[in-house]
């Protein structure tokens, strides 16, 4: 009695998983879109000339397949967002004019994404210099690639990885002449020269994010998204290099990093407060130094008092 159902399920799985695998980003060569959009060139049958043709792919339309398989949207297929009419080639010209879903279309007003506060992020973004310059054309995806985005800051335990990932988002335009000019209308400022005033520039760029100084810090948001105009960027060293560091409200706000500092090796001796200069970044050494100082002072005072008393 059981055999018919087993056969039925097997046949069902055979026919259903085949297409699923073919549509997987893992297998780009067999993916209907990626077989062209993951390669430098593509081939198609020119039905007018009736011959097979090979052409170069527009480099902006080549997708990072490794990134796709790791991105936050990896479970979606291309046509979940793009029109299914892209299935034919040449693609219809009018498809380009159709609006695509925005991030808020899915993420806005949804209880399951409430903790990300997308609506507030949107409101903050609307105050930012990005919105003022480029209006609604400046979409979320200008920074957060919908294809490959990974929530590094929330999940990584490695500060340098977080910093690098986040800074690449800014640099993808601010260090790219074409992209920067398209949005701003003028050439991109030379970052190294603009930041000449910053001591140890290279180390700063590797250890803190651009947004640490270039956004308004809001306690209730991970990142405010109100990117400030350059005149308002932070230039005061002590804003970070102090016990009450700005970084605590920004970079070190993430629980994954806080946990690391709590559970880290030799935490009692060396806490994760590296932005304070010197040995006071370790609370243990700070206490030890105060005790040694007081003991030395007490010794001197007692000795001095005895000298005065005995001399009379």
């Amino acid at each position, binding site marked *: 009695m059981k055999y018919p159902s087993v056969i039925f399920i097997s046949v069902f799985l055979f026919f259903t998983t085949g297409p699923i695998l073919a549509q997987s980003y893992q297998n780009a060569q067999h993916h209907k879109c990626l077989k062209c959009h993951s390669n430098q060139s593509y081939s198609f049958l020119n039905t007018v000339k009736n011959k097979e043709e090979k052409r170069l792919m527009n480099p902006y339309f080549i997708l990072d397949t490794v990134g796709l398989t790791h991105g936050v949207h990896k479970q979606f297929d291309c046509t979940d967002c793009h029109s299914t009419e892209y299935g034919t080639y040449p693609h219809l010209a009018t498809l380009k004019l159709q609006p695509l879903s925005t991030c808020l279309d899915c993420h806005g007003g949804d209880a399951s994404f409430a903790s990300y506060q997308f609506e507030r992020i949107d409101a903050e973004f609307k105050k930012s210099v990005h919105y003022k310059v480029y209006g609604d054309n400046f979409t979320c995806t200008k920074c957060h690639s919908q294809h490959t985005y990974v929530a590094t800051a929330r999940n990584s335990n490695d500060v340098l990885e977080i910093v690098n990932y986040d800074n690449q988002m800014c640099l993808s335009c601010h260090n790219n002449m074409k992209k920067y000019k398209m949005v701003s209308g003028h050439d991109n400022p030379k970052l190294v020269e603009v930041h000449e005033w910053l001591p140890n520039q290279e180390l700063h760029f590797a250890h803190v994010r651009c947004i640490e100084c270039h956004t308004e810090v809001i306690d209730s948001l991970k990142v405010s998204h109100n990117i400030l105009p350059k005149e308002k960027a932070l230039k005061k060293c002590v804003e970070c290099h102090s016990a009450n560091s700005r970084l605590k409200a920004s970079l070190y706000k993430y629980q994954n990093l806080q946990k690391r500092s709590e559970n880290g090796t030799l935490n009692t001796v060396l806490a994760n407060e590296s932005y304070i*200069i*010197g040995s006071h970044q370790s609370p243990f050494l700070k206490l030890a130094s105060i005790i040694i*100082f007081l003991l030395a002072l007490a010794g001197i005072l007692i000795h001095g008092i005895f000298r005065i008393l005995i001399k009379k």
Partner: protein
Amino acid sequence: MAATEKLYFYPVWLRIWHAMNALGIITLIVTGISMQSSIESSHILGFNLIVKLHNIAGILVTLSYLIYFIGNMVTPNGKFYRIKPRGFLKRPIQQAIYYAWGMFHGMKPPYPISAKRKFNPLQKYAYVMVMYMAVPFVIISGIALLFPEIILDKVYAFSGVFVTAVFHSAMGFFISIFLMIHLYIASIGKSPLENFKSIFTGWHQVH
């Protein structure tokens, strides 16, 4: 009254070094503490200026250390720093007992200074530790922090800059404690100001 003998203890080069060193070290301590506590002291001196001052004073101390190091190699002054293995612990302990107890009970100093003995054993040990260990360490780690890109990225689990910074300020802290005690001990003499006069004039009174 015992006749007082005058000894020319502090030659000109040594006094120049001592003055440069004193000025530099005091600046380094004040600016170092200010940076470490990151007090926004823009009313007095801004953080950036404090950092600059610290760097300049650090270079001054490094240069003056070269005067000291070379001076002690080429002049007879260097021999006062030699520690003999005999009575390695006994001699400084005797001196410590004198400071803590003997001097209040009319005891004579166990190692009175003379032309042959410029420093008592405890003093000698302290000077050797500060001048041949702490100061070179603080200079080397300071140069490293001036050019942080030359520092190793990781020392085991810790950032190299972090380890260097902690080491640098720990050494700086011990130098600060030394300075406190140094200034206090200098006040132990015939009169509290006598030794301070000597380091200006070069002449030391032996009673």
